[in-house]
């Protein structure tokens, strides 16, 4: 388990990185936390000629709160553990730190980055699910300049995103929790720290005892995170009763069409997608400030 011969380059600015990436195109790979790339290199599943190490680019390491747009601007190199611990995150979008807890183990969270996770795009991973659920935007810089990709267009299929060869993801911009909005996150994995068998992220806004807005997304059931907008529409306008929860489970069950190796696995993923959404929804409702 040793990689093929590789040239190692280290960039200290975004421009340097983009220049190197543009020059080598498909033959180059960005090295962020290395928690997905290094195993792929060692198993010779990835065989780039060049890796461009971005770990010294200071501009990519910060979490910023933009109070006007009510957004968190998360640099591509921000580590999972940083998001888990950040007081800005706790204050403005706690769903992120709740989800971060489920990523691997501490050592992995200390190295792995949000940028690496979304560009790597394992459809069972937490960041693709959460960013898709919240409708995040992805800032990318390439030889042609900068562009912003909405979440709906970002995740293409397994291990593939809209980021092109030669481009660098610089930041993920994530909307903050709105007034009256609460959240739920549920994941089920075989062992602590494993990639999810399935996971659900939910946000709910209540007003006068009625759901006025919601976001529902499921991970681990398709080739990318699935945002269940139609299910959401059924929920909006309803009171969050036990009966609604049961219906919600059924709607989710009907809406997802999991990709699987066997009919058993497919049925299983359906079952648990419904259960996890239901439980995440309950969590969100329970988190509503009293009186809502």
């Amino acid at each position, binding site marked *: 388990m040793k990689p093929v*011969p590789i040239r190692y380059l280290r960039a200290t600015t975004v421009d340097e990185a983009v220049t190197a990436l543009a020059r080598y195109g498909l033959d180059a790979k960005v090295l962020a936390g290395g928690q997905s790339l290094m195993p792929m290199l060692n198993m010779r599943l990835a065989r780039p000629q060049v890796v461009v190490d971005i770990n010294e680019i200071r501009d990519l390491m910060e979490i910023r709160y933009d109070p006007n747009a009510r957004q968190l601007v998360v640099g591509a190199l921000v580590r999972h553990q940083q998001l888990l611990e950040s007081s800005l995150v706790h204050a403005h979008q706690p769903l992120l730190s709740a989800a971060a807890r489920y990523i691997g183990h501490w050592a992995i969270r200390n190295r792995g980055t949000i940028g690496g996770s979304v560009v790597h795009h394992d459809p069972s991973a937490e960041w693709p699910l959460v960013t898709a659920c919240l409708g995040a935007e992805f800032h990318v810089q390439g030889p042609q300049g900068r562009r912003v990709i909405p979440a709906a267009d970002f995740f293409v299929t397994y291990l593939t995103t809209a980021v092109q060869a030669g481009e660098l993801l610089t930041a993920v911009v994530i909307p903050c929790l709105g007034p009256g909005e609460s959240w739920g996150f549920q994941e089920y994995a*075989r062992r602590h720290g494993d990639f999810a068998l399935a996971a659900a992220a939910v946000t709910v806004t209540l007003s006068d005892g009625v759901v006025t807005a919601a976001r529902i997304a499921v991970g681990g059931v398709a080739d990318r995170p699935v945002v269940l907008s139609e299910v959401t529409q059924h929920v909006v306008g309803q009171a969050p009763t036990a009966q609604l929860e049961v219906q919600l489970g059924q709607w989710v069950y009907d809406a997802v069409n999991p990709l699987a190796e066997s009919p058993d696995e497919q*049925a299983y993923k359906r079952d648990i997608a419904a259960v996890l959404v239901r439980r995440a929804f309950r969590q969100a409702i329970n988190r509503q400030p009293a009186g809502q």
Partner: protein
Amino acid sequence: MVDASNLVGQSVRRKEDVRLLTGHGQFVDDISLPGMLYAAVLRSPYPHARIRSVDVSGALRLDGVEAVITGDDAQQLGKPMAVTLDLFTKVPTIYPLAVNKVRYVGEPVAAVAATSREVAEDAVELIVVDYEPLPPIVSIEDAEQPTSLLYEEWGHNRQLDWQFQVGDVGSALAGADVVISEDFPHHRYTGVPLESRVCLADYRPGQGALTVWMSTQAPHQCRTLFAQSLGLPEHQITVIAPDVGGGFGTKLQINAELIPVLLSIKSGRPVKWTEDRYENLVSGVHTRDYVCHLEVGFRRDGTMTGVKASLVGNLGCDGTCDAAGTAALLVAAAYLPGPYHVPAFGVDVVGYVTNKAPYGAYRGYGKDIANYPMERLMEMAAEKLHIDPLELRRRNVIQPDEYPYQQISGPLYDSGDYPAMIAKAREVLDYENFRRQQDETRREGKYLGIGFAAMLEPSGAAVPNGIFNGYEPATVRMTPEGQFLVFTGNQDIGQGIETTLAQVAASQFGVSVDDVRVVFGDTNAVPYGLGSFSSRGATYAVSAVHRASVQLANKLKRIAANILEASAADLVFTQGAVEVAGVPSRRLTLQELGNKVYLWPGPYGTVPPGDDPDLQATETFMGPRVRWQPDEQGRINLYTTHPTGIYAAIVEVDPELGDVRLRRFVVIHDAGVIINPLIAEAQVVGGVVQGMGGALWEELRYDEEGQFLSGDLTSYLLPTAPEIPDVEVYHFVSPSPFTPLGTKGMGEGGTIPTPAAILNAVNDALRPLNVFLNDLPITPQKVRAALRQAGH
């Protein structure tokens, strides 16, 4: 200072841990030699294929490549792989690199030695093999149809075929009130040592001498197997096993290590091969993988009338040369009656070869196979007979006053007290209360279950015809400065023998464990012993060390008596000295004694007539009741000691997710006299965790085409700390009458009954939902599938 005479039974801190925990251990991979090359192996992508040609020219042209070998070289430089163990088996003619044919995905086809592992792996990619795929034999059903044969010359795929019967089982079952019968399939899984196999081979053409550093459990047998597999004179071979990072049974063969050895012979340079995790999972030994059809007759009162079994094992490509696993099925057959009174018994065993990785040893070695079907069936019988599962076992177990107990199938059990352990389990579990709680929580939609398994752990195998034949020498020596060396063929593989053997020796000399060094793992230094497997340490090695220590202690007393002008019978060892009991002024420190014998003045006159100055003793322990000559019923006895136990698992099942959580795990355990409770408990807990792994997570999967699906640790799921509850261990002590200290080996007990206890608990939890699971590992998907089928 601890009272040295009582060191046996004390939780002495492990001597080896300072070295191991501060990063000062020395494993094979830490050793480098000048001019050393690195090996990489080309492995078969096909489960079954003919090899038309192998072209290594591209690899040879690559800079840094010093040698490339294929099956042709294996034939020219060596011989067919030697037999590890052959009991009623067919032995194939095979080589460490495939000749003509590949028989499993991952089988070595060619190997490269180069100046770095990177270059060696680059070179492996340049080797071109032309394969002609053959129909794969994956399942037992495939193997039964001889349309495709692994070894054409056999004419079939059966490596093992054996029947045995005592008493009239047919009538015993016919006369029963209730007969429970079921097929119990068990999946393939194995031990995953932190340190994979690593080997550094140094062949010196000038001397014709071969030195092999390797991570093994049995250095001496490896030396012999190398000699036989290479046609080299054995006295020219040295095998050294330094620190070994876990074995669990998986390091008892040389099939992989022959590859760097052949590369060293071919290149004339030292060659190191460090197995990576994929290689370990795809070609390291695999185990379990069987179906046992079991039928047990019961009277209405729950007592057994007879046991009939048919055991069919899927042995992968081989279990006699490539590894040493085949005999596990025979051990299973001998121990199927377990701890129960069984009036009539019949078993037939078949082992099929298939296109999967070699069949080897892993914690249990068939005792787990004996346990799993029986302990699953006991719980089914309890339900059918409306008898509590603990009570059903109580009515059938051997009583404490019946030992030594001649089991119907051959084994002679040494000691134990199952009824007391069952009572203890009830108390510890607060059993009646638990049942009440279970009913209440079910009403809240929470599914708790409890499952049991009785445990019997034959320890210290003495199997004829091979490397597990069961004896152990030890030499104990005093230095002129008055410290002690224990030379043992037992191997430290992390289980703590550097401490336990030191405790045993130190107890005889009134010294601390720090005054005793245990020397192991070097065939030039220690007597030909058999290493570490089959929980044999506390049966064989401990007994040999104890007896050699006693013998040396007597000699030291005779010499000291001569010097002190006292009677040897009046002397005692205490605090690093030997003295006349009750007269502390008449004493010699051991340093003074050693000095006097060896230096000042030296031996003449110091040593009494009839003795000599060689301050060492060697004793060899043989199982006193091992019997290889069959009795009139055809029965033999292979094991000397038998730890016993009652295990209980409490689980909580989330029926919506199919999730199984281990809530409690209780072990009532009896391994006779315990030398070091700390180490003993760690052995139990570690074993339990591996059993939990097999029950819930670990599986070596192949698809129907024979492709291997578990080649990394994201697909082969090992349990990690958050999944494992505290394992509660309670010790009983029934000393073994067959060992001098009453000790019993105890490395495997934790693993043996754990899968049955857990699946029993899951079925108990889901009983109100009419679900019966019979398949391991218990994955959430399987739990949900069963529930869905039952309409939930």
